[in-house]
């Protein structure tokens, strides 16, 4: 029975799926949310402690009703992991406003709207913990990913203020900053590299490119009571990329 679940958005993506599976293995109740109903059913149908909700987070105005419905039926949320999002590769001079708006909407505005609803009285259960996902592209020169990086940077700017407000409500919020992780999303740009570029990318990660589980492990730690004294923090997960020999 699903009770006081952790809401995982983008649950059918690489990191989202790994988070859902890890949380279930740890005994948490989970709501797996995605706009892709078919993939939700294929990946999670029949899993105990997991409820699938088909919702498109581009509908930001519908988020209050979504959270209200969830909390009415399953009790206050024990947590949120906002994995939903995508990247749009484009050099700055070819960036389109519609793409920029869409990236900010899914990465930043949807996240802020979800956190805002969880902050409302009665929508969070005891020990509630929120984990947002930024990107190393917001920390180093990621050519071709400017709008994506800026949207992730918006999340990082949101973090301290949100942590300050939410701490008084007993809600923690932290953020992970992954480097390149092997997912369908990263394949979108890795597959467009030639052999030399791909090798250079892989060599810039001393511990290898990340796997979704590497990120899920850190996220689940932040969600757990073992992290009950941690809020407002960013954790870089990059397989040694930022401290590599140059």
């Amino acid at each position, binding site marked *: 029975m699903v009770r006081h679940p952790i809401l995982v958005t983008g649950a059918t993506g690489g990191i989202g799926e790994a988070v859902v599976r890890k949380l279930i293995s740890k005994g948490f109740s989970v709501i797996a949310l995605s706009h892709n109903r078919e993939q939700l059913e294929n990946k999670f149908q029949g899993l105990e402690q997991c409820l699938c909700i088909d919702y498109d987070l581009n509908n930001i105005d519908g988020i209050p009703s979504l959270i209200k419905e969830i909390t009415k039926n399953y009790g206050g949320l024990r947590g949120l992991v906002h994995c939903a999002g995508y990247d749009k590769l484009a050099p700055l001079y070819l960036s389109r406003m519609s793409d920029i708006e869409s990236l900010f909407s899914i990465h930043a505005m949807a996240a802020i709207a979800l956190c805002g609803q969880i902050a409302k009285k009665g929508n969070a259960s005891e020990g509630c913990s929120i984990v947002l996902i930024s990107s190393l592209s917001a920390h180093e020169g990621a050519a071709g990913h400017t709008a994506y990086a800026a949207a992730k940077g918006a999340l990082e700017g949101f973090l301290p203020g949100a942590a300050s407000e939410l701490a008084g409500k007993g809600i923690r919020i932290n953020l992970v900053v992954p480097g390149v992780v092997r997912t369908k999303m990263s394949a979108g740009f890795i597959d*467009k590299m030639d052999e030399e570029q791909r090798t250079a990318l892989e060599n810039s990660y001393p511990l290898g490119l990340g796997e979704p589980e590497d990120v899920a492990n850190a996220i689940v730690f932040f969600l757990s009571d073992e992290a009950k004294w941690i809020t407002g923090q960013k954790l870089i997960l990059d397989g040694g990329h930022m401290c590599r020999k140059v």
Partner: protein
Amino acid sequence: MDKFLELMAEILEVNVEDISMDTDFREDIEDWDSMKGFSVICMIEDEYGLVIDVPTFLKCKTIGDLYNKVNINE
């Protein structure tokens, strides 16, 4: 064909009159770089719904090669 040339001109940052199907985009475009290459592949995906793999892209020398390779029917 005109639309394809216009899209290529935008990526290559040149006037559309300055390129043709015979333009060798790697050699004839002074500031050609890998980012422009990424952009060409993305443009073909976005505008024509065609995924062109890197080896195929690398075999294309001219804009015409690219146009023919992906078999675009405008």
